[in-house]
Structure formats: C-alpha cells, structure tokens
C-alpha cells in the first residue's frame, strides 16, 4: 500500500503544486504577493474538498449516476474561466513590473483564491476518499499515511523547483513569458479534462482518437505523469478533447490581448 499511496497522492499534489508555482511567479512579477491569496485558497479548497468527499456518493448517484462527472466538469470549466479572467486582468493592468501596488489587486487575488480552491477541491477530495478507506481499521493505515506524506512531499518539492526555476529565468530576463505560456497550457488542460468528463458521462461525443503516442511516451511512465500534470499530456486523445484543449489554451493570449486593448 505504501507505493500505491505515494503515487496516488503525488499525482494529485503535482497538478496543484505546479499551478501554485506558476501563479506565484506571475503574482511576484506583477508586483503582488502570493501570501495575499495562498492561505485563503488553501483553506477554501480544503473545506470544499472535504464537503465533496463527504457527499461523494450522493453526488455520484445524481443525474443518472453521472453527477460526479458533471461536478468535475463544472469545477474544471470554472477554473478555465477564472484563469482567463485573471489573464485579462493582467493584460489590462499593464506591462510587467510596472503594475505595482497602485492598482487594485482585490480582483486578481480573488481570482487566484478561486483557481487554487477549485484545484484543491477536485484533487483533494480524491485523496480524502482514498484515505477514508483506511480509517475503518483495515490495518494498512500507517503505511498509507507514510506513503501519502512522501507523495505530498515530492509533489510540493517539484512545485518549489518549478517556482524557483521560473523565478531565476525571470530575473535573468530570459523566457519571461514562460509562466503565461504554462498558464495557457494549463487552461487548455482544464478545458480538455472537462470535455473528457462530459464524454465519460455521455453528454458529449468524443469523436475518434486523433493520434496514439502510447508506445513512444506511455502515460503511466514518470515523464508521462509529469507531462500530464504540467501540460495535460494524453497519449490517445479524442477530437473533442483536442478541440477543447486548443480553445482553452487560445483563450489565454486572446484574453491578455483583450485586456490590453481595454487599457487606457
């Protein structure tokens, strides 16, 4: 059970940790402080994850047994919308580093809280449900908690690695738009995952798989899992997922440009 819980918790932590680090770098870059949104996002996300996990059965059985898919799709769609709104705010706020404190950051911080909370709700609830199975005295609890701790630790470390890496690149003035590019890919990833949930619920037609790279880069490999968390890699995506991914990713630069145009 030890290894299983390491992998499971790592997988769930990774996506959120990478998102945190990208948002934190963007916040610092635009003259804000991650401290302004991180605690609220963690708390709200933790509370929502708990509520979701507690009501999972009822949610799953609603809507002819596809309530879980619809809830997840709604969470991911809301994340995409919040990310797009956040980028539009950045575009409107002005060039990097000059945004500074004179602008009202309430909207930006609120959107960051929302994005983080939504990410934790989905990933956290899954971990909570997994752990709940071992609190009934099944015996493996210690191994599972140890494994979960290790998985969580590795996930957070990778997040910090990305954070300091992006920050270092930024200080050197290289690849300065990389955090925004990653955010665009994340947005595409979320919309594609929302599409996948709707396909699983039979609310959306998938269409044929567009390609298959499973022999070249299997999703279950370490690089495959990392790519899944960072850019939403999938080895055999359907038409609907690819279209959703492209739309979600394209929305970010478009929102930035729109925000910029509305600047005075």
């Amino acid at each position, binding site marked *: 059970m030890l290894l*299983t819980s390491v992998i*499971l918790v790592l997988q769930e932590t990774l996506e959120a940790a990478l998102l945190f680090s990208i948002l934190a770098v963007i916040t610092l870059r635009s003259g804000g402080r991650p401290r302004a949104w991180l605690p609220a996002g963690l708390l709200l996300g933790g509370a929502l994850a708990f509520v979701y996990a507690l009501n*999972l*059965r009822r949610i*799953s*059985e609603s809507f*002819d*047994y*596809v309530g*879980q*898919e619809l809830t997840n799709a709604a969470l991911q769609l809301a994340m995409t919308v919040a990310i797009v709104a956040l980028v539009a705010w950045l575009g409107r706020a002005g060039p990097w580093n000059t945004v500074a404190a004179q602008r009202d950051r309430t909207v930006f911080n609120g959107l960051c809280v929302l994005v983080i909370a939504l990410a934790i709700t989905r990933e956290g609830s*899954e971990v909570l*449900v*997994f752990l*709940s*199975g*071992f609190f*009934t005295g*099944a015996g493996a609890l210690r191994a599972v908690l140890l494994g979960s701790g290790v998985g969580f630790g590795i996930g957070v470390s990778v997040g910090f690695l990305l954070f300091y890496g992006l920050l270092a690149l930024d200080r050197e003035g290289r690849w300065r738009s990389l955090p925004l590019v990653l955010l665009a890919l994340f947005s595409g990833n979320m919309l594609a995952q929302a599409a*996948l949930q709707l*396909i*699983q*619920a*039979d609310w959306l*037609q*998938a*269409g*044929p798989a*567009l390609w298959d790279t*499973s022999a070249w880069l*299997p*999703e*279950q490999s370490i690089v495959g899992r990392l790519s899944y968390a960072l850019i939403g890699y*999938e*080895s*055999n*995506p*359907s*038409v*609907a*997922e*690819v*279209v959703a991914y492209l739309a979600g990713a394209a929305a970010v630069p478009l929102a930035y440009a729109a925000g910029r145009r509305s600047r005075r």
Partner: protein
Amino acid sequence: MTTTRHTIRRWLSTALAGLALAGPAAAKMPVVEIEIRDHLFFPAEIVIPANTKVKLLVRNLDPTPEEFESYELNREKVISGNSQAVIFIGPLPPGEYPFFGEFYPKTAQGVVRVE
C-alpha cells in the same frame, strides 16, 4: 502557411465527421456489469463489440472506495464503498484496453476486449 491551413481544415473536417458519426444512436446501448469484491474485478475480462458505445455498470461491493481507471480507455472515476457507478466507454476500434483500481492496483486489474 498553406500546409498549416490545410492541416487545420483536415482537423476540422475530422472533428465534424466524428461528431456526425457519433450522433443519436444511443437507443439500445449494451450494458455490461462489473463487480468489485475484495479489491478484485468480477469478471476481470469483459468483451464488447467494436465501434459501439457501451454502458459499464460497476458495483463496488467492498466497504472501501475504489477508483476505476484506465489509460487506454481514458477513463477515471471514484466509486464509494457499497455503491455503484456508471461509466460510458467507446465507440472503440478492436483491441485490448486494460483497466485497474487505482486505490488497490496490485489486485484490482481487468481488461476490456473489443472485437
């Protein structure tokens, strides 16, 4: 530029064709039942027809939760203990599509054979 435009056009037509093909054929969807007992899938191998959408009805008879997961099928769903879940799969080309229980992957293993 022309090749890019050509590729985009081909993608779009593929997308539209896919949507049209997968239209309202859901009238008589086959239902396949799977049970989870002692962290094992029963049956561990199911056979479904090719190019047909199928409704999987997964009953978890264990008191512990499980997560039905498959990389090949692109499916992932948490199933509470003592409850059941519905997962739609397909239409799929013939082949073997392994699935597993992410919470107990050492024992919970299965495969969907499409023929």
